[in-house]
């Protein structure tokens, strides 16, 4: 299974939004659908509503910095987010999002390019090429391992397939 493109409306977010602001620690133990109710509500209620309605986030510098808790990434997945572009991103948040099947593309020039809240964006997953109106952006290339995890659906799905292959005697390279 491969995902070729991700397309849809964006929510435009500012710089230095921490992972604690994406989802505070006190909500860590909620069920995913309940986490989605709170996602980015620390920033504002309109941002919470926008993120739950649109599949792509255009994030500013250091999005997801701070805590390495995975629940902020889980909350974004539960809210229906498919991709987060912009950055640069904090590394633990980057990995946690990928491991929850949310594609993260480092493309810092996108945040300041004039793109507006609610604009449409198209992402070619394999090439990292991002299309906004007539403009084309090239994100940092995504390593194969990340593509494989996102294509599998999440690291849980990827791990289940890998363990299944090991059990059935298939050799994993």
């Amino acid at each position, binding site marked *: 299974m491969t995902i070729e493109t991700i397309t849809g409306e964006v929510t435009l977010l500012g710089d*230095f939004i*921490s992972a*604690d*602001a994406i989802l*505070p*620690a*006190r909500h*860590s*133990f909620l069920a995913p659908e309940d986490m989605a109710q709170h996602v980015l509500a*620390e920033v504002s209620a309109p941002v919470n509503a926008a993120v739950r309605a649109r599949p792509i986030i255009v994030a500013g*510098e*250091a999005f997801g*910095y*701070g*805590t*390495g*808790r*995975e*629940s902020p*990434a889980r909350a974004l997945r539960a809210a229906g987010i498919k991709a987060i572009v912009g950055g*640069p991103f*904090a*590394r*633990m948040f980057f*990995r*946690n999002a990928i*491991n*929850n099947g949310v594609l993260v593309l480092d493309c810092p020039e996108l945040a300041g390019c004039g793109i507006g809240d609610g604009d449409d964006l198209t992402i070619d997953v394999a090439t990292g090429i991002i299309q906004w109106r007539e403009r084309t952006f090239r994100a940092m290339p995504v*390593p194969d*391992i990340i593509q494989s995890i996102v294509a599998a659906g*999440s*690291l*849980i799905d*990827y*791990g*289940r397939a*890998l*363990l*299944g292959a090991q059990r059935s005697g298939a050799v994993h390279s």
Partner: protein
Amino acid sequence: MTGQTVAQKILARAGGLQSVAANQIVEVTPDFCYSHDYAIFAIDAFAQMGAQAVVAPERLAVCLDHGFPVNTARDANNHMRVREFARKHKFRAFFEGGTGIAHQVMLEKGLVVPGALVLASDSHTPSGGAAGALAIGIGETELAFVWAVGRTWLKVPDTIRVTLSGALPAGVQAKDAMLNLVGRLGILGAGYRAIEYHGTGAAALSISERFTFCNMTAEVGAKCGVFPHDDVTEAFVRGRAQFPYQPVRPDPDAAYCGEVALDLGDVEPMVVLPGREDRGVPVGEAAGRKIHQVFIGSCTNARADDLALAARVLKDRHVHPEVRLLVVPASRQVGLDAARNGDLAVLLEAGATLMPSGCAVCAGAHQGVLGDGEVCLSTSNRNMPGRMGNKNAEIMLCSPATAAASAITGVITDARDFLS
């Protein structure tokens, strides 16, 4: 072959390779992995992956630290499941709540050793660099993957070399120097990179002080921070290490992507203004600002030397009537040391409230939550909005000495006035 940094050497060995280059993706087998309360999410993910057995349980540990003693039946049930999982799968170690903060406990107990690749499900995992380990934070699902598969992938980071010279002046602590560095580098100033701490200033720092540096390496976005193995490392781990270890130092011709120099003698006591960790200013610029709660705790600054300095400031003095002083030793061992040497009695006599060893106020989901408009002065590592559980409160960061002095006056205060 060009010279290799500490990160390159350890990742190459863990990946079964002769050498690795920056930005290379390497599949690695970690030497040791640990977790805390959030192991519960790894346990769920482990089951969802259909995994049955953990690979190499002798390399795994858990230490409950984020929310102990628990507040709710839900949390109690989660802790039960973590205990049962660690027992069933024969983890090398399980540390009950109250033992201390996982990062501290793993060093104290000799489970994080020099030259090891350590992965743990917490952003302050880089603390292990104080003992010369390459210690890197991963998420909970990824930890489950490592339990189930025994390995994971890492990108080899570029390394920034930080050279420390000089010595800290009286009344100035390692925390002040690190807050200075965080301010200079910025929140993602070392993003995706490793930091090596070098220089005559670094050589003279204790393991506890090195811990403070490596711990807050996370606050500049770094993957890990490390003090390369030296005599101080060796003296700490000898007789303590639970695993065989290989000291690792960088090659003389290793390539660095950046150089930062800091003369410790120039460092002033620092206070980080609310909202972001890179907003540090000399204490004089924040002096007089009113505070409501003081937290001397966290994996950054709650070891015996930190409590000793706080006790020196608070001896024969009293906490301001409009301030709550919360003291949380980083581990039971630290609490015991401070009890035996009298520092704990000094703090309690001054009006401190003693809380169980653990993450406490810093994690923002357990105890010590702030009210609207309140200000907490904290020896911990983070002060972004909402960190301590209320986005309408403010957090400022400082050293244990500044925290203690400010607890006496009720406003931000230069501790040197009390130490001279």
